[in-house]
């Protein structure tokens, strides 16, 4: 198979290079003459020193050219709507139903002000409340906040709640350690660290998940809690998780479940049964809200009843038939972001869960696990591919395998193979979060949205690229060829002398070097 795909390659100029001085793309509504007459010098009240001295160096371009530019950039983007994007393991790329996009464009969603009186937002409050009930059912926990605007913000929220809990018991100073595992998402360490904790990490044992004895060695009267994923980034499920949570509780800590991606275990296993006190779900992963190119998003944090008093303000309460925002939360950790969060994400996730119901939700999980294992089966055909840890492990959700042998054989590593997927119309595949414990890693995740044909096509592309690497390493090392841009000079991204985050920096460098 040779790649037949050809991505749009428009070689678009930069936005700042568009147009001609004097052009414009929009005219904001001018104030009426009477208003202008009332304040003839608009800047009269502004001290001269605080007025802008030079107009901003913005593009001057007419509307058609500007629209065309961004449409072309969109065509140079392999979003999941147009490309099979299950290379992004741990991100749970899945279909985001179009009807939900229509719902969030209703004026009754997009034109709501977050400080409107409760009487005028009963609909959105009801959606927030109903979504909370659904997440309680799916997790087995008792209350959720939808305020955190991302998964890592939700982890941070939960770490803050752990901090508040121990402080309320007079142990805030003493319990300053959060335990996590190295195959949990990096935010399971950075979140607690940002919340003021020290981090104690567990490495995987021979089976790919942390050993109980390692946990025992980590526990002490300084333990505030554990923040962990399961299945971990590797897709390996830790079967001793209930024992983990029991031991942490015995040591006086709380157990936080990172369920950013819970796709493979919806309706199959819940946070409550595994003994967790807190958890979070990413609405933009498992619950189908689109990822929006990297947000806006939502991480919903859930807690057991006894921790509900620490949730960020406000929470939605139902009193009779009325929905209210409860701001009176004296023990709350504060706020994670402004207002109630990204409400439009809640609308999408609510509609998605409702479209599926209890049976559909379970079918999502089962299909995702079926797809993951079918993909794994196909990937065994890729030359130089190996499965770390016991090969008896069946992946749940994504899985992390290694192309180390291919690298040893050909000098072509996983990042090279990944890059070349763009030539086949696929989004490149995610390697690994750091540190790279699995060498030459690949972490795909075929969620329920992908058909057998999608998976076969992707696996065939992987096999083809690996074989090309065996035949001619340089061919793959220099790829891709048929996407929107060729291999970049990556060294310029990390060198402060060379990096170009803006034209201003480029101009400053030019001024220094006399370019």
């Amino acid at each position: 198979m040779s790649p037949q795909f050809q991505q749009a390659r428009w070689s678009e100029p930069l936005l700042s290079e568009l147009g001609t001085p004097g052009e414009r793309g929009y005219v904001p509504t001018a104030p009426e003459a009477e208003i202008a007459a009332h304040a003839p010098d608009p800047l009269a009240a502004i001290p001269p020193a605080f007025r802008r001295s030079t107009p901003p160096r913005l593009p001057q371009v007419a509307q058609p050219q500007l629209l065309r530019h961004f449409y072309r950039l969109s065509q140079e983007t392999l979003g999941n709507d147009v490309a099979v994007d299950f290379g992004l393991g741990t991100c749970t790329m899945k279909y985001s139903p179009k009807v939900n996009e229509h719902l969030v464009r209703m004026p009754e969603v997009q034109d709501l002000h977050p400080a409107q009186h409760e009487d005028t937002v009963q609909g959105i409050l009801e959606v927030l409340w109903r979504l909370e009930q659904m997440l309680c059912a799916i997790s087995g926990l008792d209350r959720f906040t939808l305020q955190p605007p991302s998964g890592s913000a939700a982890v941070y929220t939960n770490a803050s709640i752990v901090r508040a809990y121990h402080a309320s018991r007079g142990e805030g100073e003493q319990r300053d350690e959060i335990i996590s595992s190295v195959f949990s998402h990096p935010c399971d360490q950075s979140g607690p660290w940002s919340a003021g904790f020290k981090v104690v990490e567990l490495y995987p044992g021979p089976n790919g998940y942390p050993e109980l004895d390692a946990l025992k060695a980590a526990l002490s009267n300084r333990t505030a809690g554990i923040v962990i994923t399961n299945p971990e980034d590797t897709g390996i499920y830790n079967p001793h998780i209930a024992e983990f949570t029991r031991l942490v509780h015995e040591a006086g800590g709380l157990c936080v479940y990172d369920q950013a991606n819970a796709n493979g275990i919806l309706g199959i296993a819940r946070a409550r049964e595994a003994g967790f006190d807190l958890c979070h779900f990413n609405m933009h992963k498992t619950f189908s809200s689109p990822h929006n190119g990297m947000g806006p998003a939502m991480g919903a944090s859930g807690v057991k009843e006894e921790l509900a008093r620490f949730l960020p303000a406000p929470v939605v309460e139902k009193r009779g038939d009325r929905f209210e925002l409860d701001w009176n939360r004296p023990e709350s950790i504060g706020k994670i972001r402004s207002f109630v969060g990204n409400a439009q994400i809640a609308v999408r996730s609510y509609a998605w869960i409702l479209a599926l119901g209890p049976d559909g939700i379970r079918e999502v999980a089962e299909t995702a696990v079926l797809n993951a294992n079918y993909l794994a089966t196909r990937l065994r055909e890729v030359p130089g591919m190996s499965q770390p840890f016991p090969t008896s492990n069946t992946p749940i959700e994504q899985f992390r395998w290694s192309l180390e042998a291919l690298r040893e054989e050909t000098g072509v590593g996983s990042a090279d193979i990944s890059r070349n997927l763009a030539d086949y119309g696929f989004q490149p595949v995610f390697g690994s979060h750091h540190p790279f414990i699995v060498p030459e890693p690949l972490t795909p995740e075929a969620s329920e949205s992908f058909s057998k044909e999608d998976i076969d096509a992707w696996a065939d592309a992987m096999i083809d690229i690996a074989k090309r690497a065996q035949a001619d390493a340089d061919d793959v090392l220099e790829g891709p060829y048929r996407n929107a841009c060729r291999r970049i000079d990556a060294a310029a991204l990390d060198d402060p002398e060379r990096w170009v985050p803006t034209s201003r920096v480029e101009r400053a460098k030019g001024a220094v070097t006399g370019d």
Partner: protein
Amino acid sequence: MIGLVVNPVAGLGGAVGLKGTDGMVDEALARGAVPRAGERAVLAVRALPPEVPLATAGGAMGADAVRAAGREPALVVDGGDGATTADDTRRAVAALAEAGCELILFAGGDGTARDVCAAIGDRVPALGVPAGVKIQSAAFAESPRRAGELAGAWLTGRRRERAAEVVDLDEDAVPAGRVGPRLYGTLRVPLGPGLVASAKSPSNDEDPAAVNGIAARMAERIGDGTAILGPGTTVAAVGREMGLDTTLVGVDLVRGGALVLRDAAERDLLEALDGDGATTVVTPIGGQGFVLGRGNQQISPAVLRAAGIGRLTVVATPAKLAVLGARPLIVDTGDEATDAELRGWHRLVTGYDEETIYRVE
């Protein structure tokens, strides 16, 4: 047929505070070093399948070890003139390859690996039996026994190999502040999961933020107390953080915020330690996860006991731990009782506010 070459003087320098044995044999022997490479080769030979014919070099360069393991060599090639120079190793290895050996087992260290590499490159597969002072090359098995097992499995199995970098300490780089392994080529080594350690990352560390965090935390912990600082970039940063001119590749002793011993031998350390013991700070050397017994043999079982075995602190950046691929850290002090006490779960210092629970075997 498997070929075996022993570098009889490999490992001599370690226990007496030398960074290697290359060109230092007399000095090491004068300091009281006892040759060990032959013993290690014996362990490897014992783990080989008995039916496999063995070719080797004469005397201390192999034949002695084969016989000590209860085997009779099928072929003995020229073992050199007895001066045991690098040339002898090269000549013997070339002769074994010429004689049709399918795999060369060599007992030695990185210097020996360099010589093997110079003789056969990647034409004939080879595997190191760890017996040297410095082992950072990925061409070695984790232990002599494992070397024998792996060689046997390769011979009777699918015979898959991988390229393994042969690295050795680049002495010229030491003044520049980097324990810099230098690449001398590759050997083709038998591929077997978990047997040959990868050496993806050289011993020096590329993550300055993590190194600084570890150094600051350790400097706080040591304070005015006594500490033995082992080799390695990360440990050297601890000395630097304390404002002391400690060594990069040697072992130092600090006390009361001052540098008491610089580049100390085992004997010096034992003399300097008093009843209060010391915090012993070590870091994995090379990519194989050894924290004791490789490159820091001065921190001997006796030193560890005098310092207090429970006061061993392993420091490592997360990136360096990752190189281990979740395999345990290894202690191989030469004293089984000491090793046994050190095995188990250690709380590694991996950042200023970060620790890692890690298994030591």
